[in-house]
């Protein structure tokens, strides 16, 4: 649930088969499972969520103890969504968190991948596994563990620092809390992103490097002028996943929220949605908020993708 819950799939080989003259059932059989899953697991719930978002539980018959009934309320839930200052504030916090988390995650993953790929590094296999390991730990478990490390009264780090007369700051306090959450996400996600980049680096033909070295390139120049441009597709892919992961941040804050008053129950949009649905018994508002959030992330993803493709892939053509 951290930054990179989705593993990349192999790209479709070619669309040529679909364009052949004689239609055969084969393509439909191939696409069937994916299509069925999409319809059952995505499309139907999505349509149901949109339906829910236009309805609401309203008291009928008056009286202090009237009964709630499910009625059509038009755009009311959407109006509530857009006029709720707290929800807008939570969107702001989410963007602030993303702005901290994504660049550091991507930067450190890239740095680690390049270091591991450099010819002079040793113990690469062990290191790779060690860096990747946190990705295998469930986000909630990781968050709990980090939470105990953060809390001054339970943290061994605070205890050690105190023995030397140093007072460590409470990272769960205001301001630092973004870093505290980003740290957990980065810790969990850096290995996954690093592996993607590393694998991509290994597939660069060795002759290119030989040629560069003959031309007098230093390892740094090779990394900067050859490896990183070659890595662009992998960087876009992992960057995309990281952005989406950051925008969906949930398990870290919800776990830490029970340890500090800094993170309140509507700190991030997904937390606000959970609260609306499961504490305030307002599934309809939660559905409207989900639809808005999903559309927002989709739009943002498309923009990021388009910009990055124009900048990088476009030049290759």
């Amino acid at each position, binding site marked *: 649930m951290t930054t990179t819950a989705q593993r990349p799939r192999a790209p479709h080989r070619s669309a040529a088969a679909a364009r052949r003259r004689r239609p055969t059932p084969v393509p439909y059989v191939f696409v069937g499972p994916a299509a069925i899953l999409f319809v059952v697991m995505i499309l139907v719930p999505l349509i149901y969520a949109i339906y829910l978002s236009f309805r609401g539980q309203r008291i009928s018959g008056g009286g202090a103890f009237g009964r709630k009934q499910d009625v059509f309320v038009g755009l009311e839930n959407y109006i509530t969504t857009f006029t709720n200052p707290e929800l807008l504030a939570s969107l702001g916090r989410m963007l602030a968190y993303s702005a901290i988390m994504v660049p550091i995650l991507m930067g450190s993953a890239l740095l680690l991948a390049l270091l591991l790929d450099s010819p002079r590094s040793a113990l690469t296999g062990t290191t790779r596994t060690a860096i990747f390991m946190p990705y295998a730990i469930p986000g909630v478990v990781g968050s709990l563990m980090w939470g105990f490390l953060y809390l001054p009264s339970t943290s061994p780090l605070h205890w050690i620092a105190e023995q030397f007369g140093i007072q460590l700051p409470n990272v769960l306090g205001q301001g630092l809390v973004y870093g505290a959450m980003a740290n957990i996400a980065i810790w969990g996600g850096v290995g996954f992103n690093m592996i993607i980049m590393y694998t991509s680096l290994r597939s660069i033909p060795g002759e290119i490097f030989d040629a560069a070295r003959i031309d007098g390139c230093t390892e740094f120049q090779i990394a900067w002028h050859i490896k990183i441009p070659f890595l662009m597709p992998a960087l876009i892919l992992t960057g995309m996943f990281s952005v989406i992961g950051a925008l969906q941040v949930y398990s870290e804050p919800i776990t830490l929220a029970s340890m500090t008053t800094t993170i309140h*129950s509507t700190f991030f949009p997904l937390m606000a949605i959970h609260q609306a649905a499961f504490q305030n018994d307002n599934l309809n508002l939660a559905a409207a908020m989900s639809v808005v959030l999903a559309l927002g992330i989709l739009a943002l993803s498309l923009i990021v993708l388009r910009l990055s493709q124009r900048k990088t892939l476009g030049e290759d053509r």
Partner: protein
Amino acid sequence: MKTKKWLTALAGTAVVAVALTGCSNTENDTAASEGEAAKSGEPITLEMWAWASNIEKRVDAWNAANPDVQVRLTKPGGNEDVPTKIITATRAGEGPDIAQAEYGQLPSMVISDVAREITDDYAPYAEKYAPAINDLVTFDGAVFGVPQDIGPTSMMYRHDIFDEYGFEVPTTWEEFAEVAEDIRAAGDGDMYIANFAGGDADLFVGLTMQAGANWWTVDGDEWKVDIDSQASRDVLAFWQDMVDRDLVSVVPGGTPEWNSMMNDGKILTNVSGVWAAGVMASIVPDTIGKWKGARTPEWTPGVQTVGYRGGSVNFVTTSSEHPKEAAEVILWLNASDEGAEGLAEISKFPAALHGQDSLSTPPALMPEDEEYWPLATEIAQDTFPIQWGPNPNVAFAAFTDEVGKALTNGTSVVDALPLVQKAVVDDLKASGFNVAE
């Protein structure tokens, strides 16, 4: 450009899927309960959702004595999300037959048409309860639940440390603040009289009631919300002052940090419901035997009346196919003499008067305090009648958030009250209730 299409599709798919999990979760949670339509003559099985600790012992006792009406207990974890779970499941026709709710949650169960009226079944048992308790389950003259346990507020204190330093046990909040100063000055200066767990709205409803606040009142068919009242402001201002003068610790309640402070003797009192002594033993095992019970400090010297903190009811759901039997079960479990005694045995503070009288074993946290339960029974006789509104969940969430924000930002927690008031009124209006201005 090929990658673009599948990336986009994948991205969009993942986004929507995650955003929607919030809506689809509940459908899975109820899969376990399929209404077993009993053919006549065959034994029936009632589904029961209850989180009360040790309640399985009482359910086992019922099952052993009633082979024809078996109860299958499911313990939903925690009780924060449970009300919504019950409401959602019941609307879907997949709810349990019997459920548990806190007193504050019962009105929303009634309004959501989840709790079934049991007025006639309940009538013979009404005399088992104090009138104020009967009022808690009665709405517009109809009864919707059977009270299980109650939590009049009380205080427990570390008698070993109080004795060691010669602190007086405070009987008024004024004395409480004075003793707090003594405690800060004593020892290594790392002890506090209490912790201000600002987020604990449930407790503060009780504490503000003690000062005369009524968060919700019904006037005809209108709701009146008075959360931002003078009484509430006084109570929060008192605690804000304690926070400002560093006389209380400020850590979120129930956290590892709070647990370790309680266990290490850094927090010397705890104001909660009388049931707390039953459940605290497992949280602060190092301090068993070092606590004693006392009355909550008074606002007006000489006025001992207190509010409630916690306590819960069992109710029959509207989706139950065997409402008659379900009502029988919960009346036996909570209201019958046998049931009330059984609740006392599992360290509940029974709502039924008979059960309160039968409490003989001191709670696990203070095994030698023979006075604890008799004192609790005495406290219970002097409580405010309480009116819960339809949306305490909204009030509690807003209270926790706003007080937490004030503590984080260093502003006054009193400023949280108008925001909570507004959140509650807005929610009532949005749901279509008449709200008096």
